[in-house]
């Protein structure tokens, strides 16, 4: 990472360290050989660094830790490394917990996780929200279409509420009345179909005794037109 041309003094430092590129080094060689002042500055810099390095070597040598102490320090470090290596591969979550804390996910994960949580909560609520109760007016008008002259069954509403059953009964009664005179046979078919449907509903209500439910069900009624 550089910020432009090197300062002349810094370039001298790089030259002294032998880290100048070949082209620049050759240029410095020429300048040093022809400029006494530059050569004197280079010598001073060389002496300064030389004295420093010599002093550091002597200081480190005189303060060198005894082999025993260094050995103990190295042993402590290597033992810690072994224990750390075993913990990394251990299945014990409690030991791994500190590392998990140290290795947190990046910050952008948290808002995305929050959005996903809110989205899933909304989807779950929308999917399992209770059906709104339908009023009597809605049940009597929705989904009920009277069949045509071919005697086809009229569509009945999909709800199982008692109000829907009443409207269904009225619908069938009306249909039956309209076809009685025109076709007695067809009227009888409708009547039997009505009974079959009621029987099916009663069976769905109680599987133990469908006949009992059939006769005890107040909504059941025999045809009044017979």
């Amino acid at each position, binding site marked *: 990472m550089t910020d432009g041309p090197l300062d002349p003094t810094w370039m001298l430092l790089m030259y002294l360290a032998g880290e100048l590129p070949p082209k620049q080094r050759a240029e410095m060689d020429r300048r040093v050989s022809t400029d006494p002042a530059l050569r004197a500055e280079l010598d001073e810099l060389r002496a300064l660094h030389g004295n420093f390095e010599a*002093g550091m070597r002597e*200081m480190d040598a*005189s303060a060198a830790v005894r082999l025993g102490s260094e050995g103990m320090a190295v042993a*402590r*470090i290597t033992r*810690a490394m072994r224990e750390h290596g075993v913990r990394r591969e251990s299945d014990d979550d409690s030991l791994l917990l500190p590392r998990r804390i140290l290795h947190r996910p990046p910050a952008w994960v948290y808002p995305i996780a929050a959005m996903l949580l809110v989205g899933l909560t909304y989807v779950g609520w929308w999917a399992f929200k209770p059906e709104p109760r339908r009023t009597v007016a809605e049940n009597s008008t929705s989904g009920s279409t009277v069949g045509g002259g071919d005697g086809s069954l009229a569509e009945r509403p999909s709800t199982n509420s008692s109000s829907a059953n009443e409207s269904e009964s009225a619908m069938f009664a009306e249909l039956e009345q309209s076809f009685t005179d025109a076709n007695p046979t067809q009227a009888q078919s409708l009547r039997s179909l009505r009974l079959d449907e009621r029987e099916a509903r009663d069976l769905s209500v109680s599987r133990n005794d469908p006949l009992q439910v059939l006769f005890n069900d107040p909504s059941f009624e025999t045809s009044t037109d017979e």
Partner: protein
Amino acid sequence: MTAAIKSMSVREPQQPNDVAVVESDEALMLRLRTGDMGAGDVLVKRYYQPLARYIQRLAGVQVAEELLQQTWLSVLDHADKFDPQAAAGGGGFKAWLFRIATNKVNDHWRSRGRERSATEGLRLIYDDQMPHAGHRLEGTEQQQKLLAAIEQLPDSQRQVLMLRYYSGMKFVEIAALLGCPLNTALGRMHKAMLKLKDLMK
């Protein structure tokens, strides 16, 4: 886990020094990545002196071993991220190791904050009382003056100076490690040398 335990349970005999010297740092790191803790032992011993001294000069004797241990544990944690080929162009394993140590020292400085500067003067006295600070009394007067002068340098200058001396990294690599321009790294180095010269007079 099996590999880690295997490397622990099977105590290989101490390898001859010539074998340890011959094996390169990168080769040892590759072994360490596979769970061979013996390779880690070799690396720790090989770099104990320069790395310990480097951390001591920057962070002080009291916390040097702790930071040194943290450095090697971090080496273990990130062994799989060490790319020998990529590191070769940037100073190799040594530069990578000192980069980790520098980060640990920087973290220590940040955690200490202004408290460190407030106790700067006390630290020199406190170091004398530490059991391993005997070197301070054993060295010559000139050596003690040099040590005191180093400790009086600003953190940024001392860091470049010690990093250059103990790691042998090139100035370009030092600048990249510290995240500063090359001119800045060279300037800090030069100013540190001049200040040491003045303090040693």
